[in-house]
C-alpha cells in the first residue's frame, strides 16, 4: 500500500505519516501542495491519497478534481484531512468525488476509522 500525504505544513505531514505507520502503512511519500503532488501521482503507483485543502499553489480540492479527471487516477481513493469545515465546502468535496473527509484537529481513532471505511468500500 503506497500512500501520498499532501499538506503544506510539514508538522501535519509528519503527524499523518506517523499515524499511518501506527496503522501499518509504512510506504508513504510527501508533497507540499497539489502542484507537486499531481506529477507524483501520475508517475507513481500510489494506492491512496491523503490531502489537505488549504495549500498555496494548487489546493486540495483542485488536486481532487484533477485526479478525478485523469483516466488512470480517477479511481484513486482520496481522503481529505483539513481545517476547512464550512458545510458548502464539505458538499463541494463530496461532489468532486472525495472518499472521506476528516476535519482538523482530529484524533488517531477518527483517522483510522475513516481510512478503514474507505478501504472497506473500495474492496467491497
Amino acid at each position, binding site marked *: 500500500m503506497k500512500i501520498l500525504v499532501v499538506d503544506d505544513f510539514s508538522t501535519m505531514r509528519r503527524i499523518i505519516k506517523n499515524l499511518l505507520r501506527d496503522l501499518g502503512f509504512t510506504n508513504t511519500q510527501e508533497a507540499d501542495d497539489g502542484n507537486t503532488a499531481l506529477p507524483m501521482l501520475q508517475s507513481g503507483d500510489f494506492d491512496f491519497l491523503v490531502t489537505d485543502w488549504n495549500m498555496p499553489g494548487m*489546493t486540495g*480540492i483542485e488536486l481532487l478534481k484533477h485526479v478525478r479527471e485523469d483516466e488512470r487516477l480517477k479511481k484513486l481513493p482520496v481522503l481529505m484531512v483539513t481545517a476547512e*469545515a464550512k458545510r458548502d465546502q464539505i458538499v463541494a468535496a463530496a461532489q468532486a468525488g472525495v472518499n472521506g473527509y476528516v476535519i482538523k484537529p482530529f484524533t488517531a481513532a477518527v483517522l483510522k476509522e475513516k481510512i478503514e471505511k474507505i478501504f472497506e468500500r473500495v474492496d467491497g
Partner: protein
Amino acid sequence: MADADIKNSNNEFAKLFSEKANELMGRLENNDLAGAVGLIQDLQQVRDENLYQEIGQLTRALHESIKNFKLDGDSKGAGSEIDGAHEGLQYVVEMTAKAANKTMDKVDESMPLSEAIASEASEIHQEWNRFLNKDLSADEFRELTKRINTFLENTDKNTRKLNGNLSDILLAQDFQDLTGQVIQRITTMVTDVEARLVNLVAMAGHVDQMTGIKHSVVDTPDEIDDPNKGVGPQLNAEDNEDVASDQDDVDDLLSSLGF
C-alpha cells in the same frame, strides 16, 4: 470617485477665480471701488464654498478609508479586521497552550513508567548476573523467576501505555498547522492595514494643499469568492450554522449526501 470630484471642483474654482480676477482688474481701472469690494466679497464666498466642498469630499474620502478597515464579507457581519486579528491570536494562544499542556501531561505520565522499567531492569540484571555466577540460592532463584515474570508483565503493559502517550504527544503537535494558518492570515491582514494607513497618512498630508488628494481604495481580492481557496480553521465553529463544528457534524452531512 472623490479624487475626480476634487479635481473638477478645483478646475471650476480656478476658472471662476480667474474670471472674477479679470473683472476686478476692469472695475479697478474704471475706479469702480464699490463694485471691486463687492467682487472681492464674491471671491471670498466662492473660496469659502470651495473650501467647504473640499473639506466635505476629504471627509468622505477619509470615511471610506476608515470603512475599509472593516472585515469584508465577515460571517458575523460586524467587527473590524483588528477584532478578527485579536480573535485569531487568542485562538493561537489557546491552541498552543492546549498542545503544550497536553504534551507535558503525557511526558509527566510517561517518565515514571520508563524510570520504573529502567530501575527494575537494572536490579533484575544484577540478580541475573549473580545467578550466572552461581551465587544464587535455590530460594533466591525462585524469588528471581517470580520477579522476572512480574517485570515482563508490567513491561508489556507499561510500554503499551508509553507508546500510547508518545502517539498522543505526536498528535498534540497539530496545533502548529492550525495556528500557522491563522497567523499567516493575520500577517496578510496587517500588511493590508499598513498599506491603508499609509494611504490615510498621505491623505492627511494633502489637507493643507487641499488639492491632488490621492484616494486610491486598495481593492483586495476577496479570497472567499474562489471556492477552491480554503479559508483555514473556523475560529467560532460552534456559533456558525454554515460550519461543521466537529467530525460528527461532517459525518452527518456526508451521510445525508449518501456517503
